[in-house]
């Protein structure tokens, strides 16, 4: 713990990078997974293609995806995009199923009622289906966020920023407190982000607690 206070500036610097590298992919992945999840829920064929594809993508080790991305995109290996793109892929792979399952669980009679009231498809999706799917979607988002925060560190193995830098530097200089500082930072960040999403979820879906 003392390492953190003695090196506060450095610690804050890697915290900022870590936060950026984990939050940006979650946001992009979340936005992408909504239309994809909607599509997978509508069409059996799409589902049959996207779900196994997501499973396979998820098995590719993050370190491998991080080193392959620059080759595929033609960017430098030290570009932050090399962490962002793989994490977007993992987020979508994980969220796709959550969104599709959540939309599938919206009761049929609610959809029928909305249709009967004259909701057009887009408005029905935005004001009826999606809000009702939010609790499950946010549960998926929480898993994706926590796993992203933990995975950003892997980028340090190829020289990218974030808490992972404290791991590799601590390893090379035999500095256990430095590694511990990064570990504590990662866990605290994950717990805070998870709690924040839980809170947002509760605020957005007050009806979920009404029955208790």
């Amino acid at each position, binding site marked *: 713990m003392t390492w953190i206070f003695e090196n506060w500036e450095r610690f804050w610097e890697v915290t900022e990078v870590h936060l950026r590298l984990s939050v940006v992919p979650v946001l992009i992945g979340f936005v992408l997974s909504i239309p994809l999840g909607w599509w997978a829920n509508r069409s059996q064929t799409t589902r049959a293609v996207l779900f196994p594809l997501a499973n396979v993508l998820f098995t590719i*080790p993050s370190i491998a995806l991080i080193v392959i991305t620059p080759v595929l995109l033609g960017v430098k290996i030290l570009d932050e995009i090399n962490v962002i793109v793989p994490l977007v892929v993992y987020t979508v792979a994980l969220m796709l199923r959550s969104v599709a399952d959540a939309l599938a669980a919206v009761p049929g009679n609610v959809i029928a009622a909305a249709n009967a009231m004259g909701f057009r498809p887009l408005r029905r999706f935005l004001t009826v289906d999606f809000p009702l799917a939010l609790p499950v979607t946010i549960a998926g988002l929480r898993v994706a966020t926590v796993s992203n925060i933990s995975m950003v560190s892997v980028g340090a*193995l190829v020289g990218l920023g974030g808490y992972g830098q404290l791991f590799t530097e*601590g390893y090379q200089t035999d500095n256990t407190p430095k590694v511990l500082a990064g570990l504590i930072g990662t866990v605290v960040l994950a717990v805070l982000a998870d709690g924040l999403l839980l809170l947002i979820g509760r605020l957005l879906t007050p009806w979920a607690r009404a029955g208790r």
Partner: protein
Amino acid sequence: MGWLFDPAHWSGSTGIPLRLLEHLGYTLLTMVIAALIAIPLGAFVGHTGKGGFVIVGLSNALRALPTTAVLILVVLWAGLGDFPVYVALVLLAIPPIMAGTYAGVRAVDPATVDAARGVGMRESGVLLQVEIPNALPLIYGGFRGAALQVVATATIAAYTGAGGLGRFVFDGLALQDFGQMLAGAVLVALLAVLVDLGFAGLQRLTVSPGLRPVGTGGKK
């Protein structure tokens, strides 16, 4: 893909078959150790209903633990070798298995459990002969999810000089040899699919046919 199919890379002490076996070895031993720890814990908590909050909290906190950091810390503390790899991977595998077991045991129909008590089963019998067999599909769900993560993450072992398919990724990185890195990545993904198929087969053999999903929309 030339690297992958070069016969020179398919033999010897740094060849693909040996690295595959090392990787598989890490995975299987990790899964056995993690299962021995996580299944009894999850089953006990699921059975008694006590401490569920602790289990859920603990698995969430463990999930946030960066495996790289754990690996490095154990290496700094205990020295290089396979031991740090197992510590890091077992910690990674415990949360999903424990959560799956806990959820599975909790989800067993209470009427079934009552019936088991009603016919005079002891608590140990209720747990071992009724709850766990009924919870197997969810236990396997957690177990297979953990196995996928372990196969993928065992790659990192090579960062501290241990073996496995990660060697190709890290050696390729050091040599700027993208063919080798790509080969390592592809092999890990293939191994993950094969390991999952293997456990799917085990699941088919050990889960009671009465618990298989019925109807067309069966679960994978």
